[in-house]
């Protein structure tokens, strides 16, 4: 179980290229943290640092007091799932796409498991449906289902693609928030909408030109 007062990620003097400069910032475990700010402010880069897709040029970024640079990258990513703005689906069926992450770890899921996770994201497609025919919103939900099936304790959600309409975007965010709360996971979510952030977040941080401009703890 996650201790809800524990610090999960901590930034100390972190600098990444000329995109991000964060002197001191902590993200709590088991809570919902929203990163807001105008586009180009470094929000996506922050998530990429947390997923260890890139590493800071300077400073330290830790997870449970362990420097990310010391953590095995693959094992780290098997704990911290990133749902990108435009997640990539692989050619094939819905079931192929759901199983793909598990297969990397030598695991499998029954069709029942797949149907259950599909239901949790309200996808009604058949498991053998070709992903080519999915709409933008459906593709996003399938990508979410894929992450949920992997059951990672930490989820990083980049704001769903601007190609989606606001209602669909809002629905997806609500779905993630509900699941995260129900399962006691940590969520770090990037959104340009302060409204969305206020509605869901325990902690709101605002990024401006790569620097932290404000932090608001609701909890």
């Amino acid at each position, binding site marked *: 179980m996650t201790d809800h007062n524990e610090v999960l990620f901590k930034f100390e003097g972190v600098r990444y290229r000329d995109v991000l400069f964060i002197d001191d910032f902590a993200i709590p475990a088991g809570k919902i943290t929203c990163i807001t700010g105008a586009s180009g402010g470094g929000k996506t880069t922050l998530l990429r640092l947390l997923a260890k897709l890139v590493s800071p040029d300077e400073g330290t970024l830790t997870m449970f007091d362990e420097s990310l640079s010391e953590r095995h990258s693959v094992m780290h990513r098997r704990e911290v799932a990133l749902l990108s703005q435009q997640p990539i689906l692989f050619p094939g069926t819905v079931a192929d796409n759901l199983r793909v*992450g598990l297969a*990397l770890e030598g695991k499998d899921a029954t069709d029942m498991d797949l149907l259950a996770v599909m239901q949790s994201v309200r996808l009604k497609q058949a498991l053998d449906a070709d992903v080519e025919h999915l709409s933008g919103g459906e593709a996003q939900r399938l990508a979410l289902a894929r992450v949920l099936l992997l059951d990672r304790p930490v989820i990083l959600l980049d704001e769903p693609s601007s190609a989606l309409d606001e209602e669909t975007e809002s629905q997806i965010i609500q779905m993630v928030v509900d699941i995260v709360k129900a399962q006691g996971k940590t969520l770090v979510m990037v959104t340009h909408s302060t409204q969305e952030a206020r509605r869901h977040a325990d902690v709101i941080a605002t990024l401006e030109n790569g620097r932290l401009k404000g932090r608001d703890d609701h909890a």
Partner: protein
Amino acid sequence: MTMPEGVLDLTYWQVGLAYGFALMVLVMLKRRGIPREKLLVWATFRMTLQLVLVGLLLGWVFDHPHPLLTALIVCVMVVFAVFTVLRKFREEMGPRLKKVVMVTLPLGTLPVIFFFILIVIQVRPYFNPRYVIPLTGMIIGNSMTGISLGLRSMIDHFKHRHREIEQWLILGAYPSQAVDGVVNSSFDAAILPTLNSMLGMGIIFLPGMMSGQILSGVDPTIAILYQIAIMMGILGGVSLTTYLFLRFGSRTFFNKQHQLVQKA
């Protein structure tokens, strides 16, 4: 009708007549105003010079067979093949990928060459330059083309399928798992020309080595056996070299933290 037993000797005059074709192309270029005359003359001159020099060299080597000399020539061919690839992709390769080319080209071709020369053809003596040099040349040349095709395909994949490869990492893939698709399709691109040439062989065209042997009076059935064997050798060389290159080369697109880098 009797078949000629040996080779029909060509005189310098006869070869001189063949240059008539180059002259014909020169006239065509001039008439059409296509500015390629200089290249045509230069190419004709270089081909002549290079072949004369190689002919003299081979003549000398065949008259003075020695294992070290054969080994040296094989090494020169490998080094030349490596540098050809490095020069062709100078701009697109980083130092790590260049090292992989330097290691995998010899690593992939030499075992195939040894197997082919010593066990399949059973050349006697084992260093006989008359066999070793041309057979080795064909295997190395084709393997070099294989690496070039695989490399081209791999670089393009990393450029255009960057997000897809990163998606694999996000899902918790090791780099080797993330590039599985890239390695497979690049391998496919590299061996396809060899497979296609096998499909057309004997029907659409007669391969060079076989034609050469037939022209020099060798029984076609023997020429065919040699051709089949060398095609298998080429297939083996191309496949092994390209596979090793792609397997190790694809890793250079990631750093120690298993992150994608811009240029390998």
